[in-house]
């Protein structure tokens, strides 16, 4: 019997050696180790053995089973590994194909510029104030020291609704409204973004509708040097630490002294290029010390209080910041244009 078992072992191991697929392996397992397999068949003869022989043969049989099982399981593992490898090979993707992106839109570039500017000034302690798009002649002009028939009204032809109501031509009326609502209290620190309207034929640099941001500070000791300091801080946050400003005397009815402000060219840094027409400077805003008449009309004693105001065109700043060459893009709302602003 022992010899039979040994022979079985040899036979099984020899057959197992040549196995090369999992099905065959399983067939051999059933053939030798299964309930009706060869090993069981031989062991059926155990009953005829003596009590001494039985444990010896039993041990041999177990050894034979162990040896066969070991080969089978190592074969199985090999097959599994092979199978896994094949599956992984089959599951390979082309990593250079594009991924499925999240859909996201973008804030309109003008909104983005307004938000950026708001944030800079909020950081400097300003509140954001707003006013109506339809204004009274009084707030749009008179409260800003532009009486009826003032020649400066030539500077901006307006859209009137009635003799007394018009689409605001500037965000400055929000200054006047804020002053009155503050009832003489100081300090005042606000910026006012919003839409404004002027009768301009649309072209690459003009639009009858555009946006402005106005700033106003009133306090007991506000100096023109503070205005310069404020604007310098703003442009450096907006356009970069190396940006410089230059003030040129100018005229606005609601400020005195008044200035136009240039920044060193955002493109070339001041060495001269096409954007700055070789001058190194770009005009971006107007400003000045609040005119005493405007302060008085707003309910502030102009001997006690002083203030400064500034205003800038949002489209102009957006055009410089993003290199946009035609103002009409902002209101055409071409998806191909707007999609370009999906960045942080």
């Amino acid at each position, binding site marked *: 019997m022992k010899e039979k078992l040994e022979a079985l072992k040899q036979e099984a191991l020899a057959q197992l050696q040549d196995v090369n697929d999992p099905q065959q392996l399983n067939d051999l397992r059933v053939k030798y180790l299964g309930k009706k397999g060869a090993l069981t068949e031989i062991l059926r003869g155990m009953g005829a053995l003596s009590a001494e022989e039985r444990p010896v043969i039993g041990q041999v049989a177990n050894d034979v089973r162990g040896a066969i099982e070991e080969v089978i399981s190592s074969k199985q593992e090999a097959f599994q590994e092979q199978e896994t490898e094949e599956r992984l090979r089959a599951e390979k993707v082309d990593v250079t194909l594009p991924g499925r992106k999240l859909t*996201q*839109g973008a804030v309109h570039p003008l909104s983005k510029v307004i938000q950026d500017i708001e944030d800079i000034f909020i950081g400097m302690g300003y509140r954001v104030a707003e006013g109506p798009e339809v204004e009274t002649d009084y707030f749009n002009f008179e409260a800003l020291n532009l009486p009826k028939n003032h020649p400066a009204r030539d500077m901006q032809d307006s859209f009137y609704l009635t003799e007394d109501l018009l689409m605001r031509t500037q965000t400055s009326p929000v200054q006047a409204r804020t002053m009155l609502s503050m009832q003489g209290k100081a300090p005042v620190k606000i910026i006012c973004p919003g839409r404004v309207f002027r009768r301009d034929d649309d072209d690459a640099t003009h639009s009858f509708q555009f946006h402005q941001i106005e700033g106003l500070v009133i306090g007991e000791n506000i100096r*023109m040097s503070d205005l310069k300091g404020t604007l310098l801080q703003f442009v450096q946050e907006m356009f970069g630490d190396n940006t410089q400003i230059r003030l040129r005397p100018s005229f606005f009815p609601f400020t005195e002294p008044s200035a136009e402000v240039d920044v060193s060219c955002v493109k070339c840094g001041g060495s001269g290029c096409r954007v700055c027409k070789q001058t190194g400077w770009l005009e971006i805003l107007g400003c000045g010390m609040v*005119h*005493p008449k405007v302060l008085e009309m707003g309910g502030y004693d102009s001997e006690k209080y002083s203030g400064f105001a500034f205003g800038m065109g949002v489209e102009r700043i957006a055009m410089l910041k993003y290199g946009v060459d035609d103002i009409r893009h*902002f209101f055409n709302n071409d998806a191909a244009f707007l*999609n370009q602003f999906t960045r942080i």
Partner: protein
Amino acid sequence: MRVSTDWLSDYISLEGVTSEDLASRITSAGIEIDVIEKRNQGINKVVVGYVKSKEKHPDADKLNVCIVDAGQEEDIQIVCGAKNVDAGQKVPVALVGAKLPGGMDIKKAKLRGVLSQGMICSAKELGMNDKLLPKELQEGILVLPAETEIGKPIVDVLGLNDEILELDLTPNRSDCLSMLGAAYEVSAILGRELSLPNPEKEVMEVHDTAADHISVTIGAAEQCSHYAARYITGVRIAPSPLWMQNRLMAAGVRPINNIVDITNYVMLEYGQPLHAFDADHLKDGAVHVRMAEAGETMVTLDGAERRLEPHMLVITAGGKPVALAGVMGGLDSEVTDGTVNILLESAKFDGGTVRKTSRQLGLRSEASSRFEKEVDPAAVIPALNRAAALMAKYADGAVHQGIVEAGSAHAEPTVITLSLEKLNRYLGTELSLLEVKTIFSRLHFPSGDAGQGLVDVQVPSRRGDIVLDVDLIEEVARLYGYDNIPTTAIEGPTTPGSLTKAQAIRRSLRRLLTHSGFQEVLGYSFIHPQQAEMFTSLASEGTAVKLAMPMSEDRSVLRTSLLPQLLDIAVYNHNRKQPDLALFEIGNLFHTLEETLTKQPLERPVLGLLMTGRKGNKQWNVQPAKVDFFDLKGALETVLEYLGIRVEDITYVANSPEGFHPGRSASVYTGQGENQQLLGVLGQIHPKTQQELDLEDTYAAEILLEPLYDMTNARVAYRDLPRFPGMERDLAIVVDEQVEAGSLIQVIKENAGELLQQIQVFDVFTGSKLGEGKKSVAISLTYRHQERTLTDEEVAEVTEKAVSALQQTFGAELRK
């Protein structure tokens, strides 16, 4: 204002200062100069020639052969094609080797076999603006005055060695609408002396009193504070001297004749417009200034008959208007070639009056624009004298003795007291009294110490813009240099910066929507009147507001809805092969409750949404689905949820709002019963509109923001996480097709009790199996108890309750 540097040099030395330097210094002191025009655009070897003879070219009809004395060793022969060339003329001759503007080189040449040793030039060929020349000289060669010296370089003759600074004046600096004003400004900037003309000395009067021939009276003192006239007789009308014509052309003014040119020249010099009347056409030489009478008419010198109105100021003679004061003269009293005697007017007319008249009649001129900005009262008499002296000199006129005038100049200088301490406090500077006074002396503003750091400054009447001490502070600042003012930080209390709640909410909406795939757009506040009618206005009561004078009908009404323009934008992109869109805009609607607008219309902020085409990005292996009603509604629900608005506070009612597909649209309300308030509308755009616009199925919504601001609840209150498992039950309910899912949910909520945590519709379908007019709504119910695990029995009980309520209310059946 075009300022000739050649002319400017009459009053101030510009030695060692290039035009570029000067322009940049004037600019940094406050008057912008963008353009410097060099009148000589590259002329070389062009001289004055005398055409001795002209003969027809033997082989060419249109050409002439001229023999020209150009001051060279020998006469030269030039073939010339100009029609107006003739023997005896003085003309500009480009010699062989000459260069002309535009890079033309003149060479010896044969024209149709005849030798030509140069070219006779037109004004255009010399680079001049020939629009200012008479028509015959525009078309042909430039003919020079007979007395012009032969051989003289043409640039000297025509004053082309001049450079023009174009001053871009702000409205307050009308003082620089004159050469003298510009000279004062340049003097202050350069710190150089001025040498000014003294016209009073220049006038040589004849011994015959003007007042015996002419008289002046004013009947409208408010509109005309001063009217002065001189009487000049025996004038010879002729072209003005070439130097004067050159200067007029440099300034952009067309030369006419000596009298008209002199009035223009003096206007440019003093900023004081003058008018010359043919005195023989003024009845009795008696001039009366008054307001026009209603119904009065006059023919202005452009030949047009003008209907006058009582707000217009007129000069009259013999009871009839002969000029619109400061705007335009009358045809009858115009200076013509036959004029002999002149009444020369110099006056101060009220700016507002002139402005109103010139605007109303559309007659704006160099003169009216100066009056509009208020001329210097102190210049009225000097300008009058200056022009009289020039008329004596260049038109052989006899200036009669005395000035005839009415009203007075009121040219007393303003004195303003300035505090040095305030100046330094205002600017943030540390200027000394001496530095400040030096600046005033450069401006020719006399100043005196008033003690205690105060300065009394006399402001001459030419600077009418300076009224307050802050105006003086600006003068000091601009001449001291804005660049020299320090850069400081604001002192005093700090203030917290912030957005208002509404501003913060709008920003949050932008963030949410853009991150959810929506693109922000910006429309115009103006729309077409028909667009204002397209959709149910959220400003439900009230009417649209119109512009008084729109630029086009497309943009003539203030928008009552954002949706028409969202559609325009969709069409614009659709036409550019960008059909898949998810757009939003945050903007204002306008409407008024008044029949006639007397106060500001209501402005209400709204959120507009639009979806069309397919949703999501185009992918290489997934076909994105087309958007539908529920994508749009879901977007809106996301917005509301994000703002913390409770679902049960919002009702969707299928009442077919205007402009939408009647079966795929709803109005959105907040509140219940009497407090119900329209919040917005949403739905598919009406298929008829879609077809007209050639759009695919498009969905849009518009929601009022103000109610949302009030309802927004940003507070998050933590709830314990569930510790016991929930139980789910699915119901498939068969009801009539008309029954809305919302009502089913409502009834279930009311009847299923507190255990019900969540209701979710997960399927809706119709089919023949269900029977005609029936639909199946599959709803998933989730029950949970906070304290214990639920039993099947209690869940079955509450579900049964809900189901029987559905059966009673809607005749619903459960599908097995």
